[in-house]
C-alpha cells in the first residue's frame, strides 16, 4: 500500500504552490517557463487520473468496429489507413469513432479548447 498523499494529490499541491506563490513574483522569462511547467503538470495529472481505462475502451471499440484484433497502436494505424482509403467517410460508426478518439486526446492534452469551443 502506497503512503498517502498519492501522486495526483502531490501534483495538485505542486500546481498550487507554483501558481499561487512562485508565479506572481517571478521575472517575465521565468513566468513563461513556469506556465509551461504548469501546463505539463496538468497534462500528466489528467493522464494519471484517467489511467489506461479510456485507452482500453478505445481499443475494444476499434477492435469491434474494424473487426480486427491488435494493440491500440496497431488498431489506430488500421483506422488511419481506412480513413485514407475513404472507408470512414461513409460509415457513421467509424466517423463517430474517429471523433471520439480525437476528443479523448483533447480532454487530456488541451481541455481549454473544449471550454472555448464547447
Amino acid at each position, binding site marked *: 500500500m502506497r503512503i498517502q498523499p498519492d501522486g495526483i494529490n502531490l501534483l495538485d499541491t505542486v500546481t498550487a504552490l507554483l501558481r499561487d506563490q512562485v508565479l506572481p513574483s517571478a521575472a517575465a522569462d521565468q513566468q513563461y517557463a513556469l506556465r509551461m511547467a504548469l501546463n*505539463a503538470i496538468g497534462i500528466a495529472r489528467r493522464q494519471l487520473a484517467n489511467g489506461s481505462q479510456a485507452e482500453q475502451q478505445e481499443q475494444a471499440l476499434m477492435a469491434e468496429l474494424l473487426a480486427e484484433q491488435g494493440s491500440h497502436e496497431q488498431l489506430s494505424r488500421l483506422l488511419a489507413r481506412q480513413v485514407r482509403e475513404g472507408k470512414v467517410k461513409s460509415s457513421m460508426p467509424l466517423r463517430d469513432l474517429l471523433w471520439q478518439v480525437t476528443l479523448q486526446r483533447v480532454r487530456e492534452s*488541451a481541455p481549454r479548447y473544449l471550454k472555448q469551443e464547447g
Partner: protein
Amino acid sequence: MQSVEQKAIADWLAAKTGKPVQLSNVRALSGGAIQENWAADIDLGDEVIAAVIRCDAPSSVSDSLSRQQEFALLKAAFANGVTVPGPLWLGDPALLGRDFFIMRRANGTAAGHRLVRDLSLANDRPALARQLGRELARIHGIRPPRDDLDFLPLPEIHPAQEFVDSARAFLDQYHSAFPALEWGLNWLEDNMPAQEPLCLVHRDFRTGNYMVDENGLTAVLDWEFTGWSQPLEDLGWLCARCWRFGQQGDDYAVGGIGHRDDLFAGYQEVSGRKLTAEQVYYWEVFAHLRWAMIAIKQGERHLSGAEPSLELALTSHIVPELELHILRMTGLEG
C-alpha cells in the same frame, strides 16, 4: 559575442566602407533555435546604425534557409516595398566561423501573447490588419523566375498536393498513427482549389513573427520557410484559429488582432484582388494540417532524445486540439 569577434566585424566593415567603424552595446537578443541574434550599434563615424547581427547558431542543424538565402529574400522583399529590417551587409563566414548577415534593427516587440492583449501597441487594430494585408500583397507581387531567388525550389505539382504527399509519406514511417490528420489530408485533396500562378509566399506570416510598436507594424520577420506557393496559403496561416493566441470571434480572426474584412481590404488596395472568407477557408484548414505536422516533428526532437526540451514536448500536445478543430472544419462532428 566575444570582443575578438566584434573587432573582426568592425575591421571588416571598416575595409568595406572606408570609414572608421566601431561596434558598441553588443548584446544577445532572443531568437529561434536555429539562429543567434545580436543587437549592436555600428558607429560609422558620420552615422550610427542600430543593427542586428544574425548568425547561425553554433549547433545549427536545420533544413530551413541559410543566412545567405535569407539575406537575398530580405533584399527582394525590401525592394518590393515590404516592411522588413533593411538588409545591410552579408557577412564573410570566415570572420565568425559561421554564416551571418547584418540588418537594421526594427523597433517594438514581436511577442504575440502581449500584442493581442496590450492595446498600447499598434492601437488602431483595423489599421494594423489592413497593413498586414498590404504587406502580404507586396510579398505576393514577387513572382518566379528570379535569378536572385533561384535557390527556392519550384514546386512541380500543386503546392497543396505536394504538402499532402509529403505529410502522408512522413506519417507512413512515423511510430504513431494520426487518423484525424489522415481525414484532414483527404479533405485537402478532395477540396483543392485550381492552381493559380506561383508567387513568393512567406509561409510563417503570423502574429508573433512581425514586430509592432505603439504606432503600428515595424517589421515582417522570420523568412526562413519562404518559398514559391499559392498566395492564399499565407492568408490562411495568418487567419487560422491556431494562431490567434487565445482570442476568439471574427473580430480577432486575423492573428488575434483584427477582422478578415480589414485584412482583405489592405490586400486589395495593393494587389487589386478581392478576397473572400470562403476562398481563404481552404487554406485555414491547410494551416491546421501544416502546423500539426510541424508540431509532431518538433515534439519528436524532444521524444527522440535529440533535444530534450519542455517547450518541444508540449508542442506535441498541441496536436490533439488541431486534430479536433480540423475534424470540425471539415464536417466531421460526433
